């Protein structure tokens, strides 16, 4: 009865397709809707970068880990691509793949020991990795430019299109964002994605079922770090200037905040969180230090009063108006279906 009608409302394919079409059209037409205003385009590009970073970090979270080395890998991509341009004269088109490759190799080598640690120890070990990456950039001054960083990382050209134009870079950043979100979304839907979540839920149990947990953990970490490195390459060529501070633990922490405020259980979480918080951040920019305080307050309020994050709002609204089983009952039924939850 009631349940059926709501289910139809919820799963109407026509509505979903319509929403997707509207969304994609809006995204594509956005620069012209705002008549290519430079500042708003800048905010949009920053939103895309933050979505990339948060989404790739969420991929590691789907195994139950929060990597504080994430911004460090973004830095590896940024520095590789920048050095390719500055030392070898190769444009972003080569640099982004070189950055991805270097990031992937380092992530693979580092993650083999790193992924053996658990919970709090992983938190600290990944923090150490991120911090060492940042400080190595600062320490080898002649090669990486020290704390002053690298300058004049020019955006690339492609035929007649010069990506120094913000509208052009908007589409480039959007392409990367779509690529990363789709890749993570698809991966999450496959068998591999289910294996990731099984490791998240109960690592010991999943390895008893025959899942080689370490292999999947290393794979997820490497893939996510590679995606972060690609984001870093685009970041470097957009800002045209990078220094080690852009890639320190705070960048990883802000990505974590985006995920938590957005929601932890689906890929919509990091997308919503990064979009919402980046825009809030820009709106609050004139308030200087109060901006960070407000950030902290938003985070605390989310954790205490909206533990599912922004992505759970539609479900909460639906639960209120259509009397769907609310959050707790939902969880109970899920737990029942899977036998028994942890703890």
């Amino acid at each position, binding site marked *: 009865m009631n349940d059926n009608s709501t289910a139809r409302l919820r799963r109407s394919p026509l509505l979903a397709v319509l929403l997707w079409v509207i969304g994609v059209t809006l995204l594509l037409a956005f620069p012209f809707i705002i008549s290519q205003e430079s500042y708003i385009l800048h905010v949009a590009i920053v939103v895309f970068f933050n979505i990339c970073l948060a989404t790739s970090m969420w991929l590691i979270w789907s195994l139950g880990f929060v990597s504080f080395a994430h911004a460090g890998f973004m830095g590896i991509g940024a520095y590789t691509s920048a050095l390719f341009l500055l030392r070898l004269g190769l444009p972003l088109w080569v640099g982004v793949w070189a950055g991805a490759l270097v990031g992937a190799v380092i992530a693979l080598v580092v993650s083999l*020991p790193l992924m053996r640690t658990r919970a709090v*120890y992983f938190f600290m070990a990944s923090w*150490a990795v991120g911090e060492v990456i940042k400080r190595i950039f600062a320490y080898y001054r002649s090669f990486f430019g020290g704390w002053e960083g690298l300058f004049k990382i020019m955006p690339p050209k492609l035929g007649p299109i010069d990506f120094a134009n913000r509208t052009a870079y908007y589409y480039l950043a959007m392409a990367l964002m779509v690529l990363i979100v789709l890749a993570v979304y698809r991966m999450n839907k496959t068998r591999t994605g289910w294996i990731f979540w099984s490791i998240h839920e109960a690592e010991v149990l999943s390895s008893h079922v025959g899942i080689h947990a370490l292999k999947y953990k290393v794979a997820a970490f490497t893939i996510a770090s590679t995606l972060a490195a690609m984001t870093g390459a685009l970041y470097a060529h957009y800002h045209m200037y990078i220094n080690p501070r852009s890639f320190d633990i705070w960048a990883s922490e802000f990505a974590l905040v985006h995920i938590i405020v957005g929601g932890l259980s689906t890929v919509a979480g990091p997308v919503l969180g990064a979009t919402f918080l980046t825009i809030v951040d820009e709106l609050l920019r004139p308030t200087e230090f*109060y901006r960070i305080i407000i950030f902290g307050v938003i*985070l605390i309020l989310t954790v205490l009063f909206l533990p599912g994050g922004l992505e759970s709002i539609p479900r909460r609204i639906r639960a209120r108006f259509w009397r769907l089983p609310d959050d707790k009952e939902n969880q109970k039924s899920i737990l029942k279906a899977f036998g028994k939850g942890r703890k």
Partner: protein
Amino acid sequence: MTLQLIVQMAITGVTLGLIYGLIAIGLTLIFGVMRIIQYAHGEIYMLGAYFLYYWFDKWHLPYWAGFVMSAVVIFFFGAGLQLLLFRPLHGKDMLYSLAVSLALIFIISSAGIIAFGAVIRGISSFVTGQIRIAGAEWTYERMVIAGISLVLIIALWFLLQRTKIGLAMRAVAEDPETSSLQGINNRRIHWVAMGLGSALSAMAGCLMGTLMFIVPSMGFLATIKAFMIVIMGGLGSVPGALVGGFVIGFIDSFLTTLATSELAYIIGFVTIFVILVFKPSGLFGQAWE
């Protein structure tokens, strides 16, 4: 490298090691009893130091009274944080307590910059003078600070091992369910442990502020050190925190003198990483989930 230099670096290493140990023991106590990541531990340390600065340098009240007051005020501040923010998250994923303490870092450090100003200050010394042994300078201030840290650490050990409430804390850390079956009020132990850990951190802040300088952003540096130490020694292990404190203290003292503080950081983090590769739960730690 002369003997004098080595002795001088060793003195600094021991003093730093004891103060770091104090911060780290506070952190490890909080983790051990409540299983939460108190990421804002360093901000608490900063608040403790600023309390003493205002008490002693601005209001010209006695130093040691300020030291005790700072500990008492921060004890209740920490306990309040536990009751208000961390208690509702008890038993949930560790990520949530990490998020709340991350938010506390944002709030406290920015509010600190607004309230105290981003200026480097120092708490004045309570004693001056020095003696020379083996060519090195042993300032009285440094010796008193090392002594106080040592006394505090011993007092904490005594509290944990020889008193009823210490026994209760260890019981809660060991097994919360069984301990509450024995009639221990877990919630009370939680806020007492949180307050105690915070107070230790505040006292370390007072000592460090007297020895070096204070600035609103000093908290995060202390958080880094505290986590390095605690992870190295193993979470929840008090002797581990002390050993880790000395390791990091000596790395800091020797490498900062002989090379640069940059290198001290890199070596410190690499040391942690290598230890975790071979002992994924730290030197003295248990495998906490």
